[in-house]
């Protein structure tokens, strides 16, 4: 990527952002009859215009740029349509956010669908529907350009996912830094009551940032695991691509308009519900909550279709000889994750959809005054959102099992048990959801069964830990950066793991619920189960994708800065949580004596942010300047490392056959795969 291209893109961003801002300001002036520089409409226009122009500068009017243009135009047309109908019905047609809520919702929906047509993921399907055949593969453009348009290559899509996930991680992280700064001392410091940004006062903005931090991070995780699975699973099973390449591309591109909607939620009034969106709060929250619901709903489809593809790929496209019990653990983990994502995701979509309809049409699903039941929402919501935490961590735990034997040069201990434990966690994970509702006023008799089912999850999880420890035992441990992150994952996830059972005990949870203890707990699980393994995976497979290694020194700096700060952060969170710090509040009583602790936590948060900044710089620099690594960079047995890096477009030029166990490191003469051509040579 030439520097002047990037410079032009940023220039376009600024110019178009300014134009959009000015336009929005004018519209806002017309609506409210006064100038307000921090109002919603100008900011929303600035975001949409700027974003689109950025990609225009980078890539021209095609691919993602065209998609975004279509999305913006589609949104406006859809909203104008509803506004027109409302005008005919003599309903109000204008709001402080320009359009009324129904107009925004319908417009956003039309916008998302328009995006698909604009970006071009529908082209082949439309042709098929018209009876026109298309070639199986499309040639990709060379170089970086292919990442900004529709590609059917799973490796390109995997990288698209990963980079989008990193982008959202940065956005969500920035939100966290903002609200963490507000918490550094008691009293309202800069998110004050007289602040008025995006139609929100300071505390309301805190709520919005906190809620969006949660959901944007979750979407980031979903995209991150899709990135790993997309890139690695077909390589591990020896397929030339995913089972449904077009649906694969579709699943990725769904996530882009979804991310736009999530960002719009911040600008269009925000919302104060947390990522959980419980009614009755969410049925009264500002317009932003609708954009949030739609964004999550859309992103959910990415997850569902991606999962479908992974399962079909693993079932139908494995190399010869790869029986179930010879599949790499990461493949098992991906299947387990996908089973959850395929099915349960529908329930969060449904629960949010029901609240949307409650707001739009007055249907009283969760409104007691209309015979509805708010606790029902929580059941539907957590039926997804608990299993979802396993969606987040299972691929990460798979990465740990996958990488550990490589770096200790020993076979994985208890392969069968580890393979089965992923499925076990996934299945048990379906019947524990109500442990989030011990204080919600659900039926009392449900408490104890859900307590026990929750404790049961510890069993298959424990199996994994035993295996990891036993694998390391007596091994020749090497610690390049990926291995450091693997070790970090294990320890951090252990901390997350042991702080879970206390929450599952009803008697304890009545006190722990909604405190910072819980915040500390789930950050440990998420970092241990996703963030650390995600970094490990990136450091590990980076050479496969680029032919270069990421810088070791800065990788180690990243690790040694992030890990202690992270421990301090979550342990500190748990510490003040146990002493009564409520979660999801913008301010706290100075007499609680938490000021010092909070300041410390904020410093830790910034240290983590710095470490991740280092990672970003290392990541982008190494693409061009990293140390060349075109061979078997980690001395692995896995098939993808037996061919040169970067991987050719259609993966293995000669197919391989599985002839042994995947993790028999250190056993002389053992082999996992054999390539057809090589076999002929060695005879």
């Amino acid at each position, binding site marked *: 990527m030439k520097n002047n291209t990037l410079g032009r893109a940023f220039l376009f961003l600024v110019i178009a952002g300014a134009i959009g801002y000015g336009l929005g300001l004018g519209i806002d002036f017309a609506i409210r009859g006064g100038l307000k520089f921090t109002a919603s409409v100008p900011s929303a226009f600035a975001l949409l215009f700027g974003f689109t122009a950025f990609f225009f500068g980078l890539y021209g009017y095609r691919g993602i740029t065209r998609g975004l243009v279509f999305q913006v135009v589609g949104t406006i047309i859809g909203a104008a349509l509803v506004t027109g109908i409302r005008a005919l019905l003599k309903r109000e047609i204008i709001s402080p956010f320009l359009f009324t809520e129904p107009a925004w919702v319908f417009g956003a929906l039309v916008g998302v669908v328009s995006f698909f047509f604009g970006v071009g993921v529908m082209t082949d399907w439309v042709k098929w*529907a*018209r*009876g026109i055949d298309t070639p199986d593969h499309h040639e990709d453009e060379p170089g970086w350009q292919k990442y900004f348009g529709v590609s059917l290559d799973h490796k390109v899509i995997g990288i698209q996912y990963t980079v989008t996930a990193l982008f959202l991680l940065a956005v969500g992280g920035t939100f966290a830094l903002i609200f963490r700064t507000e918490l550094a001392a008691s009293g309202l410091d800069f998110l004050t009551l007289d602040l008025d940004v995006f139609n929100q006062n300071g505390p309301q903005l805190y709520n919005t940032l906190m809620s969006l931090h949660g959901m944007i991070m979750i979407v980031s995780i979903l995209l991150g695991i899709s990135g790993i699975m997309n890139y690695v699973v077909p390589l591990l099973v020896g397929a030339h691509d995913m*089972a*449904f390449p077009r*649906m694969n591309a579709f699943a990725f591109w769904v996530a882009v308009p979804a991310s736009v909607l999530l960002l719009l939620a911040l600008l269009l009034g925000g919302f104060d519900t947390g990522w959980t969106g419980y009614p009755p709060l969410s049925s009264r929250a500002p317009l932003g909550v609708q954009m949030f619901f739609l964004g999550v709903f859309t992103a959910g489809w990415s997850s*569902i279709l991606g999962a*479908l*593809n992974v*399962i*079909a790929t693993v*079932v*139908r*496209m494995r190399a010869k000889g790869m029986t179930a019990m010879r599949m790499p653990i990461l493949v098992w983990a991906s299947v387990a994750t996908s089973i959850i994502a*395929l*099915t*349960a*995701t*529908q*329930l969060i*979509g*449904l*629960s949010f959809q*029901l609240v949307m*309809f409650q707001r739009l*049409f*007055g*249907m*009283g*699903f969760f409104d007691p005054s*209309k*015979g*509805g*039941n708010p606790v*029902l929402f929580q*059941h*539907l919501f957590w*039926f997804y959102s608990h299993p979802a935490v396993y969606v987040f961590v299972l691929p990460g735990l798979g990465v740990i099992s996958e990488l550990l034997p490589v770096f200790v040069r020993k076979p994985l201990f208890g392969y069968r048990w580890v393979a089965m434990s992923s499925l076990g966690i996934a299945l048990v994970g379906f019947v524990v959801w109500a442990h989030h509702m011990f204080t919600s006023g659900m039926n009392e008799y449900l408490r104890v069964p859900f307590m026990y089912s929750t404790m049961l999850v510890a069993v298959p999880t424990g199996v994994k830990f035993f295996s990891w420890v036993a694998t390391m035992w007596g091994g020749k441990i090497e610690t390049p950066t990926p291995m450091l992150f693997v070790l970090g994952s294990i320890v951090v996830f252990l901390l997350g793991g042991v702080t879970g059972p206390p929450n599952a005990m009803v008697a304890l949870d009545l006190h722990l619920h909604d405190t910072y203890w819980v915040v500390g707990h789930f950050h440990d699980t998420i970092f241990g189960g996703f963030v650390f393994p995600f970094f490990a995976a990136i450091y590990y497979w980076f050479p496969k994708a680029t032919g270069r290694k990421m810088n070791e020194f800065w990788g180690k700096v990243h690790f040694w800065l992030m890990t202690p700060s992270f421990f301090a952060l979550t342990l500190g969170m748990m510490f003040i949580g146990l002493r009564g710090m409520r979660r999801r509040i913008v301010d706290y009583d100075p007499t609680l004596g938490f000021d010092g602790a909070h300041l410390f936590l904020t410093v830790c948060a910034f240290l983590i942010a710095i470490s991740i900044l280092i990672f970003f710089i290392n990541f982008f620099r190494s693409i061009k300047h990293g140390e060349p690594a075109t061979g078997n960079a980690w001395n692995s047995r896995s098939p993808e490392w037996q061919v040169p890096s970067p991987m050719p477009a259609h993966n293995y030029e000669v197919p391989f056959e599985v002839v042994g166990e995947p993790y028999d490191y250190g056993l002389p003469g053992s082999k996992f795969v054999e390539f057809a051509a090589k076999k002929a040579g060695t005879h």
Partner: protein
Amino acid sequence: MSNKQQHPNLLSQGVFIFVYLAVLTALEFFVAVTFNSVAILVAVAVVKGALVLWYYMHVNKLSEGDESSHESYAYKSGTNRLGLWLFLVSDSFVFGGLMVMRLSLLGMTRPDLSQTLGFFVTAVLLISSFFMNRGEVELHNGNRQGFLRNTMITFVLGLFFLLGVIIVEWHAVPAIAEPILHLFGEPEGKPLLTASSGPAGAAFFMMTGMHAFHVLTGLILLVIVWINGKKGLYDEKQYPVEAAAVYWHFIDLVWIFFYPALYLIGTAV
């Protein structure tokens, strides 16, 4: 295409299954209006569902397939088939969730709607499924005209169902809805069930709405396979027709459970 000899049987098998389903649907209606045993209604729905799954959606085809070459049309169709079924599994969680919502909000009560009208629209959908099955088998037999004719009938019946639900049951066009509702024994001046009138209305509109959305997408698929079928695109490569048929039967399958949930079990409120 090795089992060409069996095809006449498949056509008559479709008829038999249809007769079973029709009898069970009538039985269901009879049970509901006489002694309303929920256990029997559930059992009948399960049997009907199993019949549709096995004979109309031929779920057993999932396990068959040509393993010899990953590049053959048969193998790729097998992969597509798996993909479709995975999608349907995912989709059934939406309908399952709606069912949970209905049971939680309404319990053993149901919306106050004309049961005969419900029976009538159900019959229309059931008959459409019968013709869909015929269309698929005809194509398999190499009879393109038969396929087109039956698919067209399926489409018309499906459209009829969709319009029936929206215009009459939802009261979208009162001028048409009033006389028809009257015909089906609804008294004049009965308060309308609306989406915002209470839990029964909310559940009814949400469930029929989600189902109607699927009917709409099914109709679009039918149009596509009809047009392409007319061009002769499916004379050899028949998987798309199978997919459209399975999807259409899935819509029927969902209704097999939604129909008793909305029209039959419990007492009307």
